[in-house]
């Protein structure tokens, strides 16, 4: 490994974006100092960090609440979405009769439905989870359905020729073939689950139900505590990044050795 460190893979993956991040934070801090911007208009990174430490107990509780809703909704979307996809590929008729309603779920803005769900469902956590599930489920359904359908016709003929049973075709052919599509669905869906959770929290917050980071942002904005708004926002972003990164890692672990999408570029 005599390659200069700038050219090594870990540098490109980790160090380069990190350096950009540090530069932005330094520039932000410098600009705020230079133009003496008051922190109730636009806080400095140090103000945000300070607020994060001072309000840690409250913010951590809110983070946990948002994360809980996000993960529950994501799990529900994966579970139900995959099941629906399996039902879809069993018969065209079932797919044709149910797909319009899946699309309906997808095209109706969550912000428009959320108040209704929050009124109808008494338990706030359940209501929030439901909202987030509704918007996270569609990519799972559509991707998994396409994946399960896109079986290599040559391989399918080979399996039929060898008198493979339904289960063998499902386990050895359909499921592995659908995996790249399913994982791409996971990546989109994990982000949407977080978006859904935050949007639902905002709407529940206006209705008086307190929970999560979005509620913290609202409270902070009422009190003009801009640093705390930024702190809560930072935690939401961090959650999104961690979710995305874990999906990428999962994808690499499952596809890394055989699928084009996860192959390192050849030099």
């Amino acid at each position: 490994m005599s390659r200069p460190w700038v050219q090594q893979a870990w540098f490109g993956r980790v160090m380069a974006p990190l350096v950009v991040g540090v530069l932005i934070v330094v520039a932000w801090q410098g600009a705020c100092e230079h133009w003496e911007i008051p922190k109730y208009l636009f806080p400095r990174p140090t103000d945000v960090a300070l607020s994060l430490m001072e309000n840690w107990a409250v913010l951590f509780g809110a983070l946990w609440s948002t994360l809980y809703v996000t993960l529950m909704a994501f799990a529900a979307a994966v579970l139900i979405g995959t099941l629906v996809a399996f039902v879809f590929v069993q018969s065209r008729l079932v797919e044709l009769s149910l797909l319009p309603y899946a699309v309906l779920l997808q095209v109706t803005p969550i912000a428009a439905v959320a108040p209704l769900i929050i009124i109808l469902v008494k338990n706030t956590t359940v209501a929030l989870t439901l909202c987030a599930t509704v918007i996270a489920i569609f990519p799972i359904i559509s991707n998994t359905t396409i994946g399960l359908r896109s079986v290599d016709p040559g391989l399918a003929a080979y399996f039929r020729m060898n008198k493979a049973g339904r289960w063998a075709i499902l386990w050895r052919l359909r499921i592995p073939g659908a995996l790249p599509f399913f994982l791409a669905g996971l990546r989109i869906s994990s982000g949407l689950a977080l978006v859904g959770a935050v949007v639902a929290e905002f709407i529940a917050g206006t209705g008086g139900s307190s929970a999560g980071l979005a509620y913290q942002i609202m409270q902070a904005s009422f009190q003009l505590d801009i640093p705390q708004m930024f702190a809560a926002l930072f935690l939401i972003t961090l959650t999104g990044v961690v979710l995305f990164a874990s999906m990428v890692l999962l994808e690499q672990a499952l596809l890394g050795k055989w699928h084009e999408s996860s192959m390192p570029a050849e030099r």
Partner: protein
Amino acid sequence: MLERVNHSTIAAPVVEILSVDKVFANGTRGLAPVQLAIGPGEFASLIGPSGCGKSTLLKLIANLIEPTDGRMQWWRGDFSKVGSPGRRLAFVFQDPTLMPWSKVDTNVRLPLDLAGVARDDANARTAAALAHVGLTAAARRYPRQLSGGMRMRVSIARALVTEPDLLLMDEPFGALDEFTRNKLDEDLVRLSHERALTNVFVTHSIYEAVFLSSRIIVMAANPGRIFAEFKVDEAFPRDDGFRRSGRFAEYCRALSALLSDASLASVPL
């Protein structure tokens, strides 16, 4: 030099095609009534212009499609007995059709896994098949990491692992460069000879047909039919020496002439 084939002299044919024709669902006539018998140990190549029905004929032999009319026989019986010892059939596609998510050995073991062969037995046979095609070192690699020629070898190993008696191949080396193709042809000739396989082989290449075959079946299109057939009277196993011989050139020239005639006879009616 072209010796004609007399079907009635084939004592115990592996496959018999008795006035079989094939009309596709869209009304296209794939094959006009065809009569053909292939005997044990023969290496029969099907060659002809596109649309002559050579792939259709191969698929009929593999029972992948059903004849519209006529009758097919395998080892003097119907297809239900195919698969029992001494009556095994394997098909090699134009593409390697490997499972990209499985390593080479898992791909080769697939037909045994699907047939429910015990793990130890299956592993031993897989290792033997891989050794036969010279891929022992690649057993734990993914298809993606192999060259086109190596992938085709994996596909052949997957056919050999079932210990077939009849091996059907649909232009298996068509996508490969000529050097790789020649090498694989030589390996195939050796393998078929060692295992006393009966082969039906679809190809577009005159050289390949002459090098591999004990018998060449020239087909014509519109409608798909057998135009001519002849024997390549050269002992097996063959090696590169045959390819450089004058006899090889003679056969190629004769086949080339027959193919021109077959093309002329293939104009739409």
